[in-house]
């Protein structure tokens, strides 16, 4: 191995006046080159540089003065100047006579690695440094996962591996005091790979995450963070990282095929999903089959079921935060995967040292598979959604710890079905199209003192179209929303024990909506309705426009006071709401629009305090090193849904809802990778929107906003992080979620309430590329209103009479899933083949209650039978 310097120069006559024409007939020629001494620490660290010099050459060819025009760093400058002073040139000539000149000389410090095939050769080496102090870290374990090969760093932080077979490997860097890093490294034939890793020390109470370079985010009072490589191996997810969210503590089991997130007894619409701070409308494709963001672009998934910090808002429920991974480099990487449902692929490449690109996509074909193997009209009876998603990213390193990344996300879903019938009044058709597109730019800079700045402007378009027919009753809903947002924050240490986070979170939405059909269709949470029930006969129509613009500012301070960590925060979220008509259109009067300013209020009956910014607080106390007691509280707001603001179908006067969250719990490290956590939680919801109970509601008040809700519960999590090839967790949540639709009514169970939710999950690497895993789930069935009788209704159809609201339940659900995977290392590629078998006991899980046409007999829709989904994934 040798360090070489390359050079090039430009010549100008150094001793002549600038206004004289250049008389040079022959440029100087370097006849004695001196190798610059590569600064050792830089060479060892793999740092390259470039120095631009100005060299004076006398008429005798000797070097006179040497100046640095563009610095490559003090040590590189010094080395380059020292070498240049020893250069000897043939003199430049003018008119046949030697003359003095001044040349511009570029000295490139590059590292060229050559391997000699004599005996064992180190072909992967590196150094591990503390990210902020830049100090070498000794005794850090470096492991090649695929080969189950490991070593430890020496006193200078160095490590090396000998004669690795050329391939792409998962390199794991682990130490009890450090954040574990897992990164892909490719070993090419005949070349040595030299790396420098900057790693961070663990923050107190922060779980590990897969982070190579990013500003850390303070953990919320309650938060579960899952490593992407663990998530991919969870049974039942078919390798889809983001589907693991459905198995996290505090998350209820969604109705099969819905893909909804029910977090701590909140409505799916109350939980926000953000990608790099940018809100997306849905984490999953229709039916919950797949996530809408490619797993290979994801760095980490964080679920905060409640009481999260001040940097996020606009939701009464939980928060799912997805951070995207840095695009890998150098070289070209990617994967192709396929199973019975869809095919996906990802490709990333480093154009140069600064610019990296990635594209990914997925397209489903399950509907076509079914059409091919079953009768032609099977898709009419069994609705199979067709979905696709695609992403593109471009990352540009501007300079050290400063990067700008542009990301494009898109997702489409389509559902078509027709249920034919001999009576046209019983024929049903359903056509649903949903899509979202997001483009955002992420500027991030990390300063030497640990401060960071992040700015994320974004723009997006959401489209939702549903056209249903139930006999002669049609329902059309169209929603087209333009969304624009800007998030910016500054994180700075202002004191030895205090870190300040200041930020702005601007979001605007312009929605154009139109709707035709029954006020009661589609059903809302809280509706007393039977699954599949014919909608009541009224047909209404409206088209309306709603703009919602909110400028939220927030501030949070991380205070570390001995064993205590306090994170108080404030969020102020004024929201401007604008609508185009307050009353239904008519042929007589001109529509009159409206505007109003709204902000989430604090649920306290003191006017001064009620309208102040919403407080958030997280407190942690660590009496001993393995035990942390924590608590969180806060007030959260959510702007009104444009769908609820129609003067015909809803109520234009609705404003935002708000909630109070309170949590308290502990985290106990039983072993370095084994932890037990428990959290008790309470939520109170205010200003919920529900249907009017008035038989003759006023104009524009089909919905009212006098509902409240309350949720309380406790969750447990026993989690074994990846250790000797094994990881898993057991989570149990006991909760009760209730709603009071109107003040004169009592509390009822929330439609998605689940008293008990249990999940056991484990995965183990058997070695030689084999991995197996299992998942067991149990959950209480969701409440339903029992049918107590029937009567002959409109058009000769029976209609149900009901018992007490949500006083019955669907029977409990439990299911065992298993998964097996085999990984093959193929030269530079890795092939994984998996089988994911769901419901191995073939348990007939009731998913929904259905009734006979006369409502005299009850039965259930049964969920998934035993089903094996096989797939393959090729990485390169």
């Amino acid at each position, binding site marked *: 191995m040798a360090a070489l310097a390359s050079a090039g120069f430009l010549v100008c006559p150094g001793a002549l006046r600038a206004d004289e024409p250049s008389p040079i007939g022959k440029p100087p020629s370097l006849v004695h080159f001196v190798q610059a001494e590569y600064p050792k620490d830089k060479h060892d660290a793999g740092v390259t540089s470039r120095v631009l010099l100005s060299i004076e050459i006398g008429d005798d060819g000797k070097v006179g003065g040497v100046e640095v025009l563009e610095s490559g760093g003090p040590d590189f400058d010094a080395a380059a100047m020292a070498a240049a002073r020893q250069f000897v040139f043939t003199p430049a000539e003018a008119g046949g006579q030697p003359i003095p000149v001044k040349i511009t000389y570029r000295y490139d410090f590059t590292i060229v690695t050559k391997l000699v095939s004599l005996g064992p050769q180190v072909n992967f080496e590196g150094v591990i440094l503390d990210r902020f102090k830049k100090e070498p870290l000794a005794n850090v374990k470096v492991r090649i996962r695929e080969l189950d090969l490991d070593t430890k760093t020496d006193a200078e932080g160095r490590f090396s591996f000998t004669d690795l077979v050329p391939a792409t490997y998962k390199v794991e860097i682990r130490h009890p005091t450090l954040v574990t890093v897992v990164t892909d490294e490719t070993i090419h034939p005949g070349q040595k790979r030299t790396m420098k890793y900057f790693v961070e020390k663990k923050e107190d109470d922060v779980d590990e995450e897969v982070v190579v370079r990013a500003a850390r985010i303070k953990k919320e009072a309650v938060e579960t963070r899952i490593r992407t490589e663990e998530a991919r191996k969870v049974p039942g997810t078919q390798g889809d990282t983001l589907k693991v969210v459905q198995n996290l503590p505090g998350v209820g089991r969604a109705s099969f095929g819905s893909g909804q997130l029910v977090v701590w007894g909140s409505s799916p619409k109350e939980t926000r999903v953000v990608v790099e701070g940018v809100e997306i409308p849905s984490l999953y494709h229709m039916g919950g089959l797949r996530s809408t963001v490619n797993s290979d672009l994801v760095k980490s998934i964080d679920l905060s079921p409640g009481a999260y910090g001040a940097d996020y808002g606009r939701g009464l429920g939980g928060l799912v935060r997805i951070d995207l991974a840095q695009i890998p480099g150098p070289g070209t990487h990617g994967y192709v995967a396929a199973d019975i449902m869809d095919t996906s692929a990802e490709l990333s490449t480093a154009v140069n040292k600064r610019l990296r690109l990635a594209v990914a996509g997925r397209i489903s074909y399950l509907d076509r598979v079914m059409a091919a193997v079953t009768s032609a009209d099977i898709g009419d009876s069994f609705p199979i959604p067709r979905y696709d998603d695609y992403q593109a990213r471009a990352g540009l390193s501007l300079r050290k710890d400063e990067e700008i990344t542009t990301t494009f996300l898109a997702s489409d879903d389509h559902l078509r079905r027709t249920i034919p019938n001999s009576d046209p009044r019983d024929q049903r058709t359903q056509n649903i199209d949903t899509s979202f597109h997001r483009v955002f730019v992420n500027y991030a800079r990390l300063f030497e003192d640990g401060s960071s700045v992040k700015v994320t402007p974004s723009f997006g378009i959401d489209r939702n179209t549903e056209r249903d027919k139930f006999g002669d009753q049609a329902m059309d809903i169209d929603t087209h929303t333009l969304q624009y947002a800007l998030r910016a924050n500054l994180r700075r240490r202002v004191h030895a024990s205090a870190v300040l986070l200041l930020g702005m979170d601007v979001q605007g939405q312009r929605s154009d909506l139109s709707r035709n059909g029954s006020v009661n269709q589609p059903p809302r949470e809280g509706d007393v309705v039977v699954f599949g029930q014919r909608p009541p006969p009224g047909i209404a129509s409206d088209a309306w426009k709603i703009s919602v613009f909110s400028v939220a500012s927030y501030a949070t301070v991380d205070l570390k006071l001995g064993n205590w960590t306090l994170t108080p925060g404030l969020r102020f979220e004024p929201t401007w709401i604008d609508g185009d008509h307050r009353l239904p259109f008519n042929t007589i009067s001109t529509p009159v629009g409206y505007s109003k300013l709204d902000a989430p209020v604090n649920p306290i009956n003191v006017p001064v305090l009620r309208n102040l910014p919403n407080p958030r607080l997280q407190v942690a106390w660590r009496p001993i090193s393995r035990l942390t007691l924590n608590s969180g509280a806060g007030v959260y707001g959510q702007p009104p849904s444009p769908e609820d603001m129609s003067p015909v179908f809803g109520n234009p006067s609705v404003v935002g809802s708000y909630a109070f969250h309170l949590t308290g719990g502990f985290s106990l490290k039983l072993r370095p990778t084994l932890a037990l956590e428990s959290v008790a939680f309470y939520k109170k919801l205010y200003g919920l929107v529900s*249907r009017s109970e008035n038989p003759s509601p006023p104009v524009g008040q089909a919905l009212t906003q006098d509902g409240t809700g309350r949720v309380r519960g406790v969750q447990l999590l026993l989690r074994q992080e990846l250790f000797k090839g094994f990881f898993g967790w057991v989570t149990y949540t006991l909760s009760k979620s209730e709603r009071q639709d109107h003040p004169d009514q009592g509390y009822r169970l929330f439609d998605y309430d689940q008293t008990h939710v249990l999940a056991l999950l484990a995965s183990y690497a058997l070695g030689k590329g084999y991995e197996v895993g299992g998942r067991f789930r149990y959950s209480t069935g969701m409440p339903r209103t029992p049918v107590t009788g029937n009567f002959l209704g409109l058009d*000769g159809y029976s209609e149900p009479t009901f018992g007490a609201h949500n006083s019955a339940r669907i029977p409990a659900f439990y299911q065992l899933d298993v998964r097996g995977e085999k990984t093959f290392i193929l030269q530079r590629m890795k092939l994984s083949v998996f089988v994911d078998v769901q419901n191995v006991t073939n348990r007939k899980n009731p*998913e929904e209650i259905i009734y006979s046409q006369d409502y005299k007999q009850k039965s259930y829709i049964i969920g998934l039978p035993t089903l094996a989904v096989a797939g393959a994934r090729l990485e390169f």
Partner: protein
Amino acid sequence: MEQSKRAFICALAAISFALGCKPAVGQAPSLITDYALLAVMGQPPEAKPGDKVTYSYLLASPAGTFDDNTAGWDVCLTPKPPAENNAVASACNPPTPGTNPGLTFDSVMPTDACQLFGPIAPPVQAGKPAIRPRDPDATGGYYLPVRVKFSDLETGEVTGFAFERISCTPANANGPVIQDYKSQYHANTDPGIASTDLVTSGGARTTLDTATQPVLVSPGETVDFEATFTTGSAETFPVLAPSGDALVPQTESLHMSWFATAGSFVHDRTGVASDETATSTTNSWKAPATAMDIRLWLVLRDSRGGTAFRSYALIVAQ
């Protein structure tokens, strides 16, 4: 083989969207094994406020049509709240018996029916906001619910509603359109079943008639019934467009409900869509395997609430 194929289909379907698949539950509604209220209707089927309407019912039992003098009738004046998903308010169906007993019930369409159940908002009271008018059905109609309740049947209570169409002038339309509507719209009249033919698998056709001897069908035999509508059953009428500035012509769809005390129909209901011109509807029926007397009912409804029915006798024997 067929079973495994079906399991595979269900497995695939279950991956995607199990909730869309609603399997058949319980006995077919076309099979009469207990008291069953088949129809409740007003005569005339559409009335203006202040008009007299006579309500009657068709109650079937395994022994045939059943007339019950203790049936109790009530007119309900409570509109359906937006929070309820049935076609009629739950307040209209209290557990108490009907207050007006009789085989039939004579009533007068309330004078404020178009305000209670129709497009005309009630007068605004001082200090109170205007009331939201009701939404019309797909035919532009509004309906008054009239309950009939049988409280003394041996096997329990049976309840049903007549939905009497109210003749209301559309609101939210300009003057010329309203004038056009008034000149073009004709109150609904009942559809009719002109004849019903039984067609055997060999092609032999017999017209059923309540006045003649019951038709003989072999045990287990599958026969077709073809019911022909009377001329003018599917009427054409104007409907106000949602924009309120135009009238859209619409033709009634017709829907036949089939009932029998034994055997099985292929379809419980058949029908003719509004854009179809068929003048009859057919259904297949498989006779029971054992000899018995059969009672057959056909109930024809149009999409504006008009009703007609016929009842026939069959004999299943070798």
